C-alpha cells in the first residue's frame, strides 16, 4: 500500500466513512426509536416521538405488559422452547453429523444424500399438519422442539467441520479401546466447540424467533402461545386499523395509561433484548460457521 494520501484517497475515505455512518444510523435508529417509545409515557408518545431518548421517562409500559398474565406466560414458553429446543437440536445434530462423518460407515454416501434432499423437499403445510395430527403433536409443546431437531443445514455444517479434524485422533483413541460414544464426547466435541457454538446460536435464535409454528399447530391453545406469536397478534390488529386515519390518537383517548403503540413497542423490545445480549459475543464464531457453510454450497 502506498503511504501517500492523495486527494483522491482523502475524498474517497470521507465518502466511505460518511456512507457507513449513514448506514449504521439507518440500521440502529429504528431500534432506538422504538426503545425510546417503549420507555416514554404513552399519551406523550402520541405527539410523535422522533428521537432516541424518551421525553417523559416511565417503566409503566413494561410493568403493564409483564403484569399481563398471558404475555408473561407466553414469554416463559418462549424461553422454555429456546432452551429445550437448543439442547435437543444441538445433541441430535452433533451425533448425526459424527455418524455421517465416519469414513468407514458403509451407508455414508446414501445417508448424506438422504439428508441433503430434505433441504429442497417441502411437502407443504397441509400434509405436514395432518401428519402432526396423527402423531398427536398438535397443541402439544413437543411440536416446537421435536420436528426441527434434525435439520439438513446444521447436520451438514457440523459434519463438514468434523471431517476436517485429523483421522489419526479417532484411530488412536480406538486403538486405546474407546467406544464410539466416548470418542464423540471426549475427542470430537471438545475440538468442535467453535462450530457447535455457531449451531447452538442458530438454533436458539430460530427457536426464540419462531411464531409461525405456533400459529399453525398450537394457536387454539392459549397456554402454548409464545411471545413472538403474541407480538404477531398485536401487529395484526395494528395492521387492520392502519386504513382508518390516525388510529393511534383515537384509541389513546379511551385507554387510561397506555396505547397500542406503546404496548407494541415494549413487546418488541422484550422480544429483541435477548438477541442483543447474546450475539455480539458469538460474532467471531458465526462468521466462521457461515463461511464454512457457504463453502459447501
Amino acid at each position, binding site marked *: *500500500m502506498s503511504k501517500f494520501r*492523495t486527494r*483522491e*484517497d482523502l475524498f474517497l475515505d470521507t465518502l*466511505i*466513512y460518511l*456512507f*457507513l455512518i449513514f*448506514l*449504521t444510523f439507518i*440500521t*440502529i435508529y*429504528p*431500534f432506538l*426509536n422504538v426503545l425510546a417509545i417503549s420507555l416514554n409515557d404513552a399519551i406523550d408518545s402520541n405527539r*410523535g416521538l*422522533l428521537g432516541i431518548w424518551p421525553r417523559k421517562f416511565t417503566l409503566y409500559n413494561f410493568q403493564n405488559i409483564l403484569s399481563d398474565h398471558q404475555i408473561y406466560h407466553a414469554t416463559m414458553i418462549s424461553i422454555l422452547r429456546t432452551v429445550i429446543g437448543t439442547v435437543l437440536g444441538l445433541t*441430535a445434530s452433533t451425533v448425526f453429523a459424527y*455418524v455421517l462423518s465416519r469414513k468407514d460407515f458403509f451407508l455414508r454416501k446414501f*445417508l448424506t444424500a*438422504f439428508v441433503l434432499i*430434505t433441504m*429442497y*423437499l*417441502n*411437502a*407443504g*403445510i*397441509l*400434509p*405436514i399438519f*395432518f*401428519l402432526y395430527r396423527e402423531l398427536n403433536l398438535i397443541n402439544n409443546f413437543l411440536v416446537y422442539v421435536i420436528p426441527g*431437531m*434434525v435439520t439438513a443445514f446444521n447436520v451438514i455444517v457440523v459434519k463438514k467441520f468434523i471431517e476436517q479434524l485429523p483421522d489419526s485422533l479417532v484411530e488412536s483413541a480406538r486403538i486405546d479401546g474407546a467406544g*464410539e460414544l466416548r470418542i464423540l464426547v471426549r475427542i470430537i466435541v471438545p475440538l468442535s466447540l467453535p462450530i457447535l457454538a455457531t449451531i447452538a446460536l442458530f438454533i436458539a435464535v430460530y427457536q426464540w*424467533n*419462531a411464531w409461525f409454528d405456533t400459529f399453525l399447530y398450537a394457536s387454539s391453545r392459549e397456554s402454548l402461545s409464545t411471545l*413472538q406469536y403474541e*407480538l*404477531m397478534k398485536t*401487529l395484526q390488529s*395494528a395492521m387492520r386499523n*392502519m*386504513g382508518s386515519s*390516525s388510529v*393511534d390518537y383515537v384509541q389513546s383517548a379511551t385507554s387510561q395509561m397506555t396505547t397500542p403503540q406503546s404496548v*407494541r*413497542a415494549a413487546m*418488541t423490545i422484550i*422480544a*429483541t433484548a435477548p*438477541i442483543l445480549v447474546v450475539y*455480539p459475543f458469538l*460474532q467471531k464464531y458465526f*462468521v466462521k460457521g*457461515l*463461511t464454512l457453510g*457457504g463453502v459447501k*454450497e
Partner: protein
Amino acid sequence: MLAIPFIIFVFIFYYLPLRGWVMAFQDFRPHLGIAGSKWVGWLNFKLLFEDQRFYEVIRNTLAMNLLKLLFGFISAVGLAVILNEVRVYFFKRVVQTISYLPHFVSWVVAGNIIISMLSRGGPLNQFLLSIGILQEPILWLGQKSLFWLIIALTDVWKEVGWNAIIYLAAIASIDPVMYEAADIDGAGRIKKIFYITIPSIMPTIKIIFVMNIGWVLSMGFYQQYVLNNSLVAEVGEVLQLYVIKYGINMFRFSYATAAGIFQTVVSLVLVFIVNKLIRATD
C-alpha cells in the same frame, strides 16, 4: 448403529408427509381420511390453473423475490467492497456488528419496527414533511405502487450486513500481491476495486446468485405475511399466503395441497436446473 433413530426421524418428518400429496387428487374431507375421500383426478390442478388470482399471485411472488434478489446482491457486494476499504479496524468492526443486528430479529419484530417507522405519524413522514418533500403524510404501507419496492428495501435493511459476510470472506482471500502489483503500476483505489476486488469475488457472486434463483418461488414469505394488509393485498399476496388462505382459512385442503405441490415441484426443477448451470460454468 447410532444412525438408525435419525434415519427413522428424518424419514418421518421429511419424507412421510409426502404421502399427503394424494390429497391433491381427492376431494379430501378430514373426517373421512385419505382412505375414505373421493378421488377426483387432476380436477384441483385444473381449477388452480383456471384461477385468475393464481396467476396474479405467481406474478407477485416472482416480482418481489426477483427484486429482493437484485437489491440484495448489489447491496451486499457493495457493502463488502466498501467495508474492505476501511482501514480503521475498530470502526469496521462496529459497523459490521451493528449491520448484522436486524438479521437476528424475527420478521415479527422487524415488521413492528418497520410499521412504526412508516406509520402516518412516524419518523419517515415527519422527516420528509419537515424538509418539505411531502406536503402531507403518506400511509407508506398502504400504497400499492410502492409495496414491492418497500418489501425489497426492508429486506435489504434486514439482511445486507449478514449477506455481506460471505463476500468479505471472499475478499479476504484475495492475494495481496495483486494489489501491490497494481500499486506499482500506479492504479488508484477505485481502479483497484473495479479491476481487482470485484473480478476476484466474481465466482462467489455467481455461485450464490445462481443458487438463489432456485428459490424464487419459495423464498421466505414471513415478510409478506407480516407487512401485507388489506390495502395492498392485490399486489402483496405471494404463493405461500395463497396456500394458507385456501388451506387454513377456507378449508379447501385438496386445492391448497395442489397449489403447494406446484410450488415444490417447480422449485425442485429450478434447483436442479441451477445445479446443472453451476456445474456448466465451473
